[in-house]
């Protein structure tokens, strides 16, 4: 029997005096694949930041595995929309991926051998082991996106959150990321945020439109939105906003 891993009731959030989310309610089952679709500025990223405990909602009920986000936040693997950093930052790819295991770092600040082993394994799985000593600023866009996903997966989290994972990627890198999400679907609870209609939607158990509130989108409604051109379609060759 599937259980709710994320349960949200009447959640509201505002930046200064602008309501970004109001009265959002939804439940996500274990190992389900959910897509949050909606226009830019609709509140998709704000909603996931509330779910991860990065932002505190103004009101509402939010439980992750029956606990507050603050307690269960390390059960998430987060793939951000954009990772802004100084290209000169002194960090190797290995160190970068290992940062996905920070919650396992002992108080005395020396990595356990098991953490290094897990990092080696995930780098191998992503065909990045040859680049492990490379500085993070020297990676290509596709390699960096793979590294970000590897960092999110290295701790074997229960919930994976992809925030616009295809944003700014070329065709071949997008294909790699899509097949990776395909592979993970059904094995992990996946939350995908996008404003691009892609064939990933066919895999999704639930599709929600996020625009201040959240409403479930059925197939017909999705087609309607596509016809109206509310979102961009990859298949139609449209680019990102």
């Amino acid at each position: 029997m599937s259980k709710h891993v994320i349960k949200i009731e009447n959640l509201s959030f505002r930046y200064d005096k602008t309501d970004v989310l109001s009265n959002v309610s939804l439940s996500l089952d274990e190992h389900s694949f959910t897509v949050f679709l909606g226009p830019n500025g609709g509140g998709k990223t704000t909603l996931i930041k509330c779910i991860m405990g990065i932002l505190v909602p103004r009101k509402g009920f939010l439980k992750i595995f029956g606990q507050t986000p603050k307690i269960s936040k390390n059960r998430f693997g987060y793939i951000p929309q954009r990772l802004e950093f100084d290209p000169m930052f002194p960090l190797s790819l290995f160190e970068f991926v290992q940062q996905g295991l920070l919650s396992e770092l002992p108080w005395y600040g020396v990595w356990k051998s098991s953490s290094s082993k897990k990092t080696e394994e995930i780098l191998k799985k992503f065909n990045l082991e040859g680049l492990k000593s490379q500085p993070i600023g020297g990676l290509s866009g596709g390699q960096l996106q793979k590294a970000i996903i590897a960092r999110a997966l290295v701790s074997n989290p229960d919930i994976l959150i992809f925030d616009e994972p295809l944003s700014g990627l070329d065709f071949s890198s997008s294909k790699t990321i899509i097949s990776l999400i395909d592979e993970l679907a059904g094995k992990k609870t996946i939350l995908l945020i996008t404003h691009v209609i892609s064939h990933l939607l066919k895999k999704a158990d639930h599709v929600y439109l996020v625009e201040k509130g959240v409403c479930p989108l059925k197939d017909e409604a999705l087609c309607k939105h596509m016809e109206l051109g509310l979102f961009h379609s990859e298949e139609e060759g449209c680019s990102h906003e």
Partner: protein
Amino acid sequence: MNDSFFYALSTNPFLQMALFAGLLASLGSGIIGSYTVAKRVVFISGSIAHAVLGGIGISLYLHYYTLNPLFSPLFGAIVSAFFFGFIIGWVHLKYKQRVDSVIAAIWSIGMAVGVILISITPGSNAELMNFLFGNLLWASHRELYLLLILNSIILISSIFLHKRFLAICFDEINAYIQKQPVTLLYFFLLSLICLTIVILIQVIGAILVISMLCLPAAIANIFTRSLSKMIFLAIALSCMMSMIGTYLSYLFNWPIGATIALITTCFYFLSLPLKKLLVSFPEK
């Protein structure tokens, strides 16, 4: 000339103390400077370094009128460094986009209060000069012990917290998701930066603090992409520049703090074409 420098070094306690103080300061600045450069908070450090004059001014003023020995320039420097450091840290966390203006405001108010109070406190102009340009040649045993204690705090903290500092310097959101106390770590790192600034003000003076705190780390960053290696290289470079600076200041009778800052800056500008040369070398 060389002989006379080494002879002076073996016989002159002022020169020995100056060199020793410079080397001790290099250790702390190499470690904390690397985090400062990696986290890109160089201008926060500059603001704190200059605002500290306000604390020194208040301390000197209170000491003159109360004769309380607690109000020493060092006490004022430490208290004001932490005070301004925490204000900047709080603004950075709360209102990220407004931190630049706050840096400028703190820089100005600290200097302004300091200059006014020092000018109305009789007999404290020498303190102003020491603050601005450092007083390495007058480093006392007490100051050396203090440098040793502050360096030990920096060294022990960075040994235990290096991985966590690296994490918050690179990606605070990931560190937060990974259950790290990001705010606490940020303020602790800021406190260590404040301590290092106070150490360096004793050695090189507030005006030149940034050169010794950040430039050896910035040079190291040009040649390595690992933070641990960058720290070791920055310490080594800082020690080397302190020694060369002390030697040249003895040779030409220049102010020691300014000479160290000049050498550090020259090395920084030379390191940029040197890196290009090293990168192109294997291709030829």
